[in-house]
């Protein structure tokens, strides 16, 4: 029983991955660094790798610039709905990346709401904000996605920082600025760096946003692998070799970064806990106060945040309810009707309804597979003294650092022949989803079990309860909210997964995100917005459940 999660990871992650990496190291039947060397020396691939790192770096910096002010405001001010705003920072974990890409296209595209609005406002003939299909667009979309993570980790660090450090410094004669420079910043830096490292990994491995917002003009390692493996005709399988070598290089880089992240997070967790709550002041303190320079900066930030964070989501909802007609346009529900029709669409290779049903089925399947395994895995890590426990913990690191694209690529190569002829079946997609969400599930479940005091079970048993009865009457009721949160989290992650699904998809295996991507590539709007709106609603429900039952549990 306890070995099942390990077996699952080995069979469906390590073996196919090793098989894939081996492929990149074999040339003409012999072990060779030929392809790796080619990747590292060829100008084009060098450019791809450097661009991947460069866009990740810019995106991380943008996320910090956008996330830090929120952390500051949350740590220092009181305002209505503060709790809600704070909770909303977990949304990126459950919001599918492709909806962000779509929202950006609708809002910032050449023909998007913002450009049309500004063209009308200033009487321009050209869109003034060429954000779509540019590096700026990629960086901004990544920032949309990851600034909340920065805000979250930094706010946590800030909140845990005892205000008496800063007060001691002030009493010793330090100005506000000196206090920040000498005391506050060094003490929240581990939190900031840990958040930044996580964001860097996410951006490094990002696929849907680079593909859709970049519009195919920008190739990162992930996009390059996808293009070579899925869209190029490749009679000699050379692209497979190059893809495998690229995967190897990318994996080494992201593993290194994951290691740095876990180390930083560890050092961050060891910091002193706070003894006194941080004093906060109301954000709204009279009309005169609203116009102070500091407050004006905050209002500017709120405005930018509204455009960047709320704008794309509103754009999706608006577009899903709008229909262009000869007379201009009108409000409509036809897109929602359309996505539930079984009508064949050539560019989908199937019907929109199929995609909706698939998403549901895959989500349920992946959750049913990953959740029990995750529970067992977390149980082994938290509760047992078994020697292999640390090994298990380490086994979990690689899946976290491996992109969905690489995993799907490995599936394509490994499960294309007996005994596992899975490619082209729903099973392959469900298993891939389960592997991808597995590390997130475990990391969310570990604190749930850690929070449960073993003494409760021991005392139940001392009263004569059998182990099974203690499990049923004590443990299960106590961990049930955490399990529910874990299940919802798993479902939401699976629902939003696009990268691996796109690689593994065949006609009939489309999911909502894949369909959204295909619609978007066709520049067909309305229908993808309706689909994305549905996903936003599901993400919203997931968010509420997580917020209600699992906010503490959800730790990444």
């Amino acid at each position, binding site marked *: 029983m306890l070995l099942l999660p390990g077996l699952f990871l080995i069979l469906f992650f390590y073996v196919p991955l090793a098989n894939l990496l081996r492929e990149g190291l074999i040339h003409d039947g012999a072990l060779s660094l030929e392809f790796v060397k080619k990747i590292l020396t060829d100008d084009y691939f060098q450019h791809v790798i450097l661009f991947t790192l460069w866009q990740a770096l810019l995106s991380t910096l943008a996320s910090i610039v956008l996330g830090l002010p929120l952390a500051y405001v949350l740590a220092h001010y009181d305002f209505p709905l503060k709790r809600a705003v704070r909770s909303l920072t977990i949304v990126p974990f459950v919001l599918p990346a492709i909806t962000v890409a779509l929202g950006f296209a609708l809002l910032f595209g050449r023909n998007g709401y913002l450009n049309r609005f500004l063209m009308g406002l200033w009487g321009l003939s050209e869109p003034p904000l060429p954000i779509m299909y540019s590096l700026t667009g990629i960086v901004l979309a990544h920032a949309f996605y990851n600034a909340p993570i920065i805000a979250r980790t930094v706010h946590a660090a800030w909140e845990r920082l*005892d205000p*008496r*450090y800063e*007060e*001691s*410094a*002030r*009493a*010793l*004669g*330090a*100005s506000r600025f*000196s206090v920040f420079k*000498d*005391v506050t910043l*060094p*003490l929240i830096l581990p939190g900031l760096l840990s958040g930044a490292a996580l964001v860097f990994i996410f951006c490094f491995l990002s696929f849907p946003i680079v593909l859709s917002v970049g519009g195919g003009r920008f190739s990162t390692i992930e996009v390059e692998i996808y293009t070579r493996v899925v869209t190029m005709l490749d009679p000699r399988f050379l692209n497979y070799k190059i893809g495998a070598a690229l995967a190897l290089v990318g994996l080494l880089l992201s593993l290194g970064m994951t290691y740095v992240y876990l180390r930083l997070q560890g050092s961050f967790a060891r*910091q*002193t806990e706070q*003894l006194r709550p941080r004093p906060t002041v109301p954000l709204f303190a009279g009309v005169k106060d609203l116009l102070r320079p500091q407050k004006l900066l905050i209002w500017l930030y709120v405005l930018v945040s509204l455009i960047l964070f709320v704008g794309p989501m509103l754009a999706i909802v608006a577009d899903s309810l709008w229909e262009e007609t000869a007379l201009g346009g009108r409000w409509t529900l036809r897109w929602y009707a359309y996505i539930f029709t079984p009508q064949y669409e050539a560019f989908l290779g199937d019907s929109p309804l199929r995609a909706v049903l698939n998403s549901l089925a895959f989500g349920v399947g992946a959750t049913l597979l990953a959740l029990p395994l995750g529970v067992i895995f977390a149980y082994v890590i938290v509760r047992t003294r078994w020697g292999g426990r640390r090994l298990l913990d380490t086994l979990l690191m690689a899946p976290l650092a491996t992109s969905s694209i690489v995993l799907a690529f490995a599936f394509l190569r490994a499960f294309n022949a007996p005994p596992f002829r899975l490619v082209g079946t729903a099973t392959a997609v469900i298993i891939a989803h389960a592997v991808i969400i597995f590390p997130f599930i475990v990391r969310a479940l570990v604190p749930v079990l850690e929070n449960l005091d073993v003494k409760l079970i021991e005392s139940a048993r001392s009263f004569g309860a059998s182990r099974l009865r203690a499990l049923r009457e004590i443990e299960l009721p106590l961990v049930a909210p955490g399990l529910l949160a874990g299940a919802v989290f798993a479902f939401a992650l699976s629902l939003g997964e696009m990268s691996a699904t796109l690689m593994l998809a065949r006609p009939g295996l489309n999911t909502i995100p894949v369909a959204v991507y295909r619609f978007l590539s066709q520049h067909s709007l309305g229908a993808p917005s309706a689909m994305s709106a549905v996903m936003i609603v599901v993400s919203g429900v997931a968010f509420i459940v997580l917020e209600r039952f699992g906010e503490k549990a959800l730790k990444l």
Partner: protein
Amino acid sequence: MRVTLRGITKRFRTTVALEDVSLDVGDGELMALVGPSGCGKTTLVRLIAGFETPDSGDILFDGHSVLGVPPERRGVGLVFQNYALFPHMNVFHNVAYGLKFKRVDRPRERVHELLDLVGLKGLEDRMPAELSAGQQQRVALARALAPNPQVLLLDEPLSALDAKLRERLRLEIRKIQRALKITTLYITHDQEEALAVADRVAVMSVAHIEQVGAPQEVYTTPATEFVARFIGRGNLVMGQILKRDGGEVILSVGDRVMRARGAVGELGQSVKVLVRPERIRLNHVAENIFMGKIVGIEFAGDTLWLHVEALGTTLVVKATTLDKSVHEGERVQLGVSASDLYIVPPSDQRSPPIS
């Protein structure tokens, strides 16, 4: 530097932290501010340090209002209960931090001088996490004293330490404070510590000061029932004033008539009478003599705490192991001088203490 608080009131949202508090700490004086947790002591410190602004009232240093002066310009040294040593700086840099913002000749020497003063020479390179709690406390004191503050605020400086170390360090703090002649406000919830360390003690209950006086004064003549209960161990028994006889008062207590001191109360009024456990003596002849029955004995090394049923209540009596033949269930004769029975001014009339 003389520190004066005038009519300070401070509210946080709906709760009143301080209500019309006035206090005067003389130049070079060590004033202990003692009270239960949540009574507003820490708010008072934060007001003096400049981290909070009073809703009304004034704070004066040597007669000059410091309201509006930011914390970094008040010249106040501050030591917190958890010390708040900068965890990312070693001992040297912690102590030197306050010197960065002052023109100090030869700052290195100053740091060494202070570490010497608190007995931590040679630990300059240690990080706070590598120090014991007692050492951390000393570093915090050295750090606060380094920029030569005019006022020292110690907010529960010893509360995080164990009892033995607490007793030793409070003596050291007292010695250093005397040597530097620095005006000091010493916050504590431990009344014994307050009595032991201070020139004067200010006793706080919720949001206001109940009494200010020398340690002996608050101990022997508490101004209110709260002070009587909070300071020291004591017995409060109900009595009724029968008549006055010169400086003394004749009371009925339980089924006895007793003589007591204290100028408050009218004839026929019910009052609370304080008698300290060490002032009730076994088999002793005094103005007031009564019988009691020992119902419990606590052994505390040099002391025996007796629980004695007498005067219609249970009294705590301090005895020593020299007091022979003390057994549970035994009836004993107890004697108390009239001067040791003190009528506590009732809480509704907060009259000044009688001396």
